[in-house]
Each structure stands twice: as structure tokens, then as C-alpha cells.
């Protein structure tokens, strides 16, 4: 019976066996979590944010716990795109799951070069990170205005030979404006939300907890904001939306699908429960069985108003 349920989704040419993807920056390159479950169960893996050259990241502490969530200021520590291609893709290809390369840069030229390199690499899609709150240059500077997004996306579009996903920041007044700019500039899909800029202070020492003072908030605490943004954006654009922000289980996945997401990413919840990704898939499947849904597409945008 259960075999009849079709969990597969297709996002702008990227086909996923199920709509649950590991969120960038929370899953490394998959190696650590492969000790807990078969990575082939995942719809896809968005790898740690990549840059042209290796990056050391921000000074510690990089993590602060907040009610029902965390702040992080990791700051895109990564081995660089070439090390990713040489050392990590061969490992990830041992599994039957989509590889999504998450790319960042300081300048438009960096983004172009990243997309040029990744277009020739064995990845299934490119997710442009225009929304990291933890690096000074680039990223957010482009990602927080419609004109910035239009500039980067239109330039990389010309070079991109893979499905192009643009990841949006929630730290703006009107996320729909950004979403429309990305769509108009040629994005194949959108992913949202990246983390919400926040801060934590230790009253005892009177100092900020994070070494970088501010950081990005994620986890269950951000879910209502994320759901709202996914709902608004998916109504504002025609391209598919990948929703994320605080998803911890199958019910959360269903909620994001109903709000209009075509797929979801799960991140922070996995730090607490290493089986969160797998349980999100199982929970979705169970919901579908119980509600006589045969295909995920029946749920996408299915919110009853």
C-alpha cells in the first residue's frame, strides 16, 4: 500500500526522491551524519556554504542557545570550492541523493566564478547564498536589496548550467520584492529563509555571547516567521519555493508544503535529534497515508483559507 505513495518532487529540473533536503551549513558534507543513517534516504543535501578560497570563519564562541533555537556566527568556514569538488563530491556520490552546492562570494565576479566552476562539477543544483548574515562583505550586501539580487542573479544566470536556486534572507522589510527580483533575473527556484539576524548577551559578564557579537537565529523559534514568508513568497512568484526555518518533524514539513513550498530543508533540528531528517520524511509519509494523499503535489499550496 505505502509503496503507492509518491514522495518525489521536481523543482525546476532538479528531481528529488522526496522533498526533504538537509539545510546548508548544518550537515557539513554529509560525512558526520552518515554514521547515523543512510544518506540515500534524503531527497538531497545542501552542502556547507562554499567560497572560491578556503575560509577560516569567525572567532569563537560561534553558537549561543536561545529559547527554542540557536544563534550561530560560524561565518562560512569551508575548505573552498576546489577541495569540495576533489574531496567531498566523490564521497557524496556514493549515495543516491541530490547534491546541492551552496555558493557564496564577496563580489559579483566571485559569484560568477563560483557558478562557472560548479556548473562543470558533478552537482545537481546550485544554491546561491545571497543571505549569510555572518560575513561582512558580499552576500547580505547583495541579498538585502532587489537591485543587488537582480545584478548578481542576472549575471550568474548566463553562466549557470544547473538548476539555479536563490536563497533569500528574512532580514528585509519586504521579502516578496526580493523574491520577484530573483525570479525576474532568472532564478529557477527560491529557498528561504536563511537565519534571522539576532544577538545574545551574558548579563553576568555584560559581554555578547558570540565572538562576532551578532549571529543568525534558527530552529523552532523562527518557524512562524519562516512559514509566513514561504506563504507570501510562494504566492508572489511562479517558480518553486523551498521552505525552511525550524522544521523538526513531518507535521512541520506538511505545514510548509501547505504554505506553498515544493520542498523543504531541515537544519538545526538535526543538532538535537540526528534522525530529524529521516523522521521528517517518515512523518510526511505517515501523514499522507492517514490523509489519503498519493502525491506530495496534492499538499503543495493546499492551505485552506
Amino acid at each position, binding site marked *: 500500500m505505502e509503496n503507492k505513495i509518491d514522495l518525489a518532487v521536481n523543482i525546476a529540473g532538479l528531481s528529488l526522491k522526496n522533498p526533504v533536503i538537509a539545510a546548508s551549513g548544518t550537515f557539513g558534507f554529509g*560525512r558526520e551524519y552518515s554514521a547515523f543513517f543512510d544518506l540515500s534516504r534524503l531527497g538531497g543535501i545542501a552542502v556547507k556554504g562554499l567560497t572560491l578560497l578556503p575560509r577560516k*570563519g569567525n572567532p569563537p*564562541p560561534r553558537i549561543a542557545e536561545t*529559547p527554542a533555537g540557536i544563534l550561530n556566527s560560524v561565518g562560512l568556514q569551508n575548505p573552498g570550492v576546489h577541495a569540495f569538488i576533489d574531496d567531498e563530491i566523490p564521497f557524496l556520490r556514493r549515495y543516491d541523493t541530490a547534491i546541492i552546492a551552496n555558493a557564496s562570494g564577496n563580489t559579483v565576479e566571485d559569484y560568477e566564478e563560483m557558478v562557472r566552476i560548479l556548473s562543470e562539477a558533478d552537482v545537481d543544483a546550485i544554491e546561491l547564498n545571497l543571505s549569510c548574515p555572518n560575513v561582512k562583505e558580499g552576500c547580505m550586501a547583495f541579498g538585502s536589496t532587489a537591485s543587488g539580487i537582480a545584478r548578481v542573479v542576472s549575471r550568474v544566470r548566463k553562466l549557470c548550467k544547473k538548476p539555479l536556486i536563490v536563497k533569500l534572507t528574512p532580514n528585509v522589510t519586504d521579502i516578496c520584492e526580493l523574491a520577484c527580483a530573483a525570479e525576474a533575473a532568472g532564478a529557477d527556484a527560491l529557498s528561504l529563509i536563511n537565519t534571522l539576524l539576532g544577538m545574545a548577551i551574558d548579563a553576568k559578564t555584560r559581554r555578547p555571547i558570540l565572538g562576532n557579537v551578532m549571529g543568525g537565529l534558527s530552529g523552532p523559534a523562527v518557524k512562524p516567521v519562516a512559514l509566513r514568508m514561504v506563504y507570501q513568497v510562494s504566492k508572489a512568484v511562479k517558480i518553486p519555493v523551498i521552505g525552511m526555518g525550524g522544521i523538526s518533524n513531518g507535521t512541520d514539513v506538511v505545514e510548509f508544503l501547505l504554505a506553498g513550498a515544493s520542498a523543504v530543508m531541515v537544519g538545526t533540528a*538535526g*543538532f*538535537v535529534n540526528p534522525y530529524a531528517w529521516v523522521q521528517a520524511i517518515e512523518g510526511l509519509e505517515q501523514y499522507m497515508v492517514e490523509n489519503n494523499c498519493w502525491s506530495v503535489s496534492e499538499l503543495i499550496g493546499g492551505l485552506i483559507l
Partner: protein
Amino acid sequence: MNLIHRVRAIKQLNEDTFLMTIEAPEIADTGKPGQFVNVKCGGPHAYLRRPFSLCRIDRERGTFDIGVQIRGRGTEALSRFCENDPIDIMGPFGNGFSLNREDRRIAVVGGGIGVFPLLQLLREHPASEKLTLLGFRNRNQVVLEESFQNKSDELVVATDDGSYGARGFVTSLLESKLEESPVDRVFICGPALMMKHAVEICKAKSIPCEVSLEERMGCGIGACLGCACKVRLSDDWDYAHVCKDGPVFSGESIVFQE
């Protein structure tokens, strides 16, 4: 991997510190001194797991102990667990201390709750002579003295205010003891400033040392890159990660923050 284990015993060590015995045969079986477990403390405001180093392992019973000082939301929630409660624990993680046969004489230096991982180290280390130096803020903070006594050839306890044992910092004890007779390796765990000084003392005497670090962790397994610490490379520096590359590092490799 089964994450649900059982609390077997809780023993109060002092006002705000307790020892929790957990039954988890796989962890007891594979756990090594210096490794840690990542515990879901529960409670409404402790979202992330908390790392605790293995303080004592009883492989026959399939149990291990962690030492907990109530310092925040997580440890506060943990203090509410009772005997026989189920508890969600991942591990063992991290690298652990070196257990070298060539190290005939060793010294362990612990400060405050940093003493906990050193107990299992003393229990398993093959050295023939073990010197233990423990420092606490005051007499009320002294924990596990007898257990350490049983596993050491010599034990000296110091308190900052002199209310118990020697007066002063444990690092001064280390300095004078190494002056008397050198050791092959020193193992250090405690507050950052204490570890920094202890490493400097060892360096001056050219004695290799290992430190066990503590840092705020996200995932605990090396995926999120949250628990960074600065390490020296031959002509540069980089961030290593306490959960995966550590928590034990050679003392010389760590760049302690000011």
C-alpha cells in the same frame, strides 16, 4: 543507534555538583578517557544537547558517570532527573587522551569541574607513577578527593582561598612539583586561564602536555563547525573543532584567547 539510556544513580557531591551514573553498555564499552557524551537535558529552555566528559566508566556493569555542576538551563534541567528515568544521550564522541606506554610518570592537573575527565584517565593510564594536582575555589567545591586518591601515587589538593589543602593556584603546585622531579607527560583540564598557565609551565620545562577544552557546541559531531578553537600550524593558525578534532589537544598547539 539507540539514544535512549537510563539513569542508574545520582550522587550529590556538593551543593551544586552531582555525579550521574548512566546505564549504556555500548557507550561504556567503547568510551575512552577524555571522550564526551552529548546529553539532551530537556526542560523548556535547554534546546541543544550539552557535552559532558566521561568521568568514570564501569564496563562490567555497562555504566558510566558524568560529573555535573549546575551552571545554566541545561544542567539545571539535568539536576531534575531521577533514578531509572530514561535519558537521551549520544556518544561517545571526540578523541580522548593519549594512553602511551612510554609515559612512565604522568601528572594530571585539574581545576574545578575540569577534574572529571582526569579520573577515568588515571584509571586507565598505564603509567607506573601518577601525580595528581587538583585545584578548587574553596573547601566546599572540593569533589571526588577519595576517588582521585585511590588512583594516584600522590595527590595534592589546593584551594584558592586556602580553606582546604594548600593555599593558591594549582598551577603553582605544578611548577614546584616539576621542579622537584620531571614527568613524561602532563594532562590538564580546567578553566581556560589555568590551562594557559599550566601549558606555559610545561613548555618552559619541555614537558609534553595535553589539554581538554570546553566550547559551546551545536551538533557535537563536527557538522556545524560551531565549537571552534584556535590552533597553531607550522607558520600560520587555523580553527579546529573541539567536538571532532578534540576535546583533547596537545598543549603547544592551542592558541589561548586573551
